[in-house]
């Protein structure tokens, strides 16, 4: 079991409701929970299938150097990059993307 955070943007209400079946929506589109790897993978499957044109990031506590790992769906100004083995986020300039 490890802590899980999901942030959604511009996703259909159907996905938002589905996430609220297991997680707590603490702010609009921000979901928190404490789940096992299997449940996290099941939740990610739901996200990929239901997010349509929206974008989503899911982060969870993990035994990496930074103490967490994350995965993204869809496009966003913030894109994950691999920086010598450390996963960071690069911002695209404003106006480059829809979000």
């Amino acid at each position, binding site marked *: 079991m490890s802590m899980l955070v999901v942030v959604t943007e511009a996703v259909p209400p159907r996905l938002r409701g589905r996430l*609220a079946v297991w997680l707590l929506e603490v702010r609009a589109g921000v979901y928190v929970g404490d789940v096992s790897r299997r*449940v996290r993978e099941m939740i990610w499957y739901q996200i990929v299938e239901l997010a349509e044109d929206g974008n989503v990031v899911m982060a969870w506590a993990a035994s990496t150097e930074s103490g967490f790992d994350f995965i993204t769906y869809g496009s966003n100004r913030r894109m994950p990059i691999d920086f010598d083995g450390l996963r960071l986020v690069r911002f695209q300039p404003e106006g480059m993307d829809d979000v």
Partner: protein
Amino acid sequence: MAYLPLRPIPIKERNSMIFVGMGRIDVRDGAFVVIDEVNGERMHIPVGSVVCIMLEPGTRISHAAIKLAATTGTLLIWVGEAGVRLYSAGQPGGARSDKLLYQAQLALDSDLRLKVVRKMFELRFGEPAPQRRSIDQLRGVEGARVRATYQVLAKKFGVSWQGRRYDPKDWAAGDIANQCVSAATSCLYGVTEAAVLAAGYAPAIGFLHSGKPLSFVYDIADIVKFETVVPVAFKIAAEQPRHPDREVRQACREVFRSSRLLGRLIPLIEDVLAAGEIAPPAPPEDAQPPAIPEPPSIGDQGHRSS
């Protein structure tokens, strides 16, 4: 857009229980919500991440919400004042015929039943049951030990105790210690019933207890009762709480977490039944396999919507 099935997750990975005391329970955008009609407020309940939802007097629940709870394998229990049971439904027992027949076989054969009862005794008191005793005799030994345990706990927490006395129809009639014990045991029975169902067994087929819809639930809950909820109940009773039931629930949730009870219950059930030393019955040779096999699930074996 494809239909995406919703399936239960194992009960050991969930929170123990949520009590809902007022409002209309419905489904919005596929999520379980409690709507306060007076203020128009909505509260989400992560229905798939709890073992059981206790519905207290003052709640109304829609068909869609019942369906969602069933799909996520979450037990709904309709309870009375302070969580003491009035009526329950949500998941009928015995989703697995092989498990049900196994449990029934153990309960029907007097030698096997005695083995199971002796195992319960051993798990409960941490020592083997005395030799060559009937189930009735074991029940007598157990009753004496239980009364003594109540006395010891009452003394430890400085609570006056005149025995376990309560009126199931009138919760407020009991003394404060009995009220706390009643509220605490009903929490334990709720999660235990959910575990029995999730494991695929029948709550009514008991070994020490019999003749009640929850006989097997009482059998299993009694094994862990005095290490979990009873000390909690006495501790709260000693503090002269203003809202005993609410404080007992919080303390129960904490003791369920610290004792890892939800992860232990299903293995405990399997362990007790395995004392009969028989294998679950194999399907008959002429049995027809299901026309539509169940898809693989990450939930527990007794969950229906797997």
